[in-house]
């Protein structure tokens, strides 16, 4: 197996001693088929145990290893060294506060996720004895793509709207609202609309489309947002232009 000397330029920030970040260079010998996360782990094990970064699954499932790799939001466990011939610049995800080194604070995203009520809401809860709410494969396919989100927040780092306008609910949380709205078992769309169809919600999106370009699991959050814009516009037309408010 081929080894190569990998040169990394890593963002460092220590909240106890620093007031701003700086870059530190490392050189480690890595196997060609490794990913950036492997290189970081080797740095931590052999060169610098103080380097901080998050990871868990090493298989693009847990969503915790998101970072900027050569300026692009990516999962470090899903970014192969063989595609990066030169120095690799690794920075914490932009648009989020940096807790330490490559570790960012996702608090804002977590708050926003809660606000879209990403769970099944029923107006007529049926008793347990009646069994589960059933669904056909066709109904499942209406939302399955949006249920694949791993909450890695790469889309927030890609979205300039979120970077500039902090109140924007943002791609992943809104895509998850859409996921539940599209679910045949759910009856909570009206409640979610109070957050979704607002200037903090889909109407803050100007369709840059960056979220969908960077999403590692092809959720395509931009499509969810555009679909919600269209549906919200129809709501408005029904309410304001049709006799009886479309009721």
């Amino acid at each position, binding site marked *: 197996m081929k080894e190569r000397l990998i040169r990394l330029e890593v963002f460092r920030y220590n*909240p*106890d001693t620093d007031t701003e970040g700086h870059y530190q260079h490392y050189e480690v010998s890595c196997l060609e088929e490794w990913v950036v996360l492997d290189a970081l782990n080797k740095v931590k094990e052999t060169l610098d145990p103080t380097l901080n970064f998050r990871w868990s699954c090493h298989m693009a499932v847990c969503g915790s290893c998101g970072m900027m790799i050569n300026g692009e939001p990516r999962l470090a466990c899903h970014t192969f060294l063989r595609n990066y011939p030169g120095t690799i610049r690794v920075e914490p995800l*932009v648009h989020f506060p940096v807790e330490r080194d490559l570790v960012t*604070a996702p608090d804002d995203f977590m708050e926003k996720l809660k606000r879209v009520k990403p769970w099944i809401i029923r107006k007529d809860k049926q008793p347990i004895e009646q069994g589960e709410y059933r669904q056909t494969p066709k109904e499942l396919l*209406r939302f399955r793509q949006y249920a694949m989100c791993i909450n890695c927040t790469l889309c927030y780092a890609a979205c*300039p709207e979120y970077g500039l306008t902090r109140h924007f609910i943002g791609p992943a949380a809104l895509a998850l609202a859409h996921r539940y709205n599209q679910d045949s078992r759910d009856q909570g769309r009206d409640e979610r609309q109070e957050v979704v169809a607002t200037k903090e919600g889909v109407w803050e999106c100007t369709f840059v489309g960056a979220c969908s370009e960077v999403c590692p699991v092809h959720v395509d959050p931009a499509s969810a947002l555009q679909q919600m814009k269209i549906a919200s516009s129809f709501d408005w037309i029904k309410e304001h232009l049709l006799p009886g408010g479309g009721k």
Partner: protein
Amino acid sequence: MSRKPLIREVPPTTWYFRHPRYLRYMSREITSLFVGAYCVLLVCGLGALADGKESYEAFLLALQSPLSIAFHVAAFIAALYHATTWFNATQVAMPIQIGENFVPGSWISGAHYVVWALLSVVVILLAGVF
């Protein structure tokens, strides 16, 4: 241990230089200025028409100036680019599910192109070009 997270501000006026995809987005947005300017031109034309024959003919003559022709070419290219970006987006914004499967995206965008071409032919015929 207390937290002291580092906040990195996004430059409010130069952010779109940070990534080529943001420049692509801005170029799409800028094309809408041409579309808007063309609407203003049409309103001016209507105004000239309402003012009577003479002023309308002066308006038509002004349209033939090199500057006006250059503007028309630029506005046409901008409108083409603007329209194609939106037509290509329709496939993700308006998915159609038939049975379990979704209609291929290219059909949805393609249908928009077909309608666009047909409407353009109608407009050209109405304008008496042929």
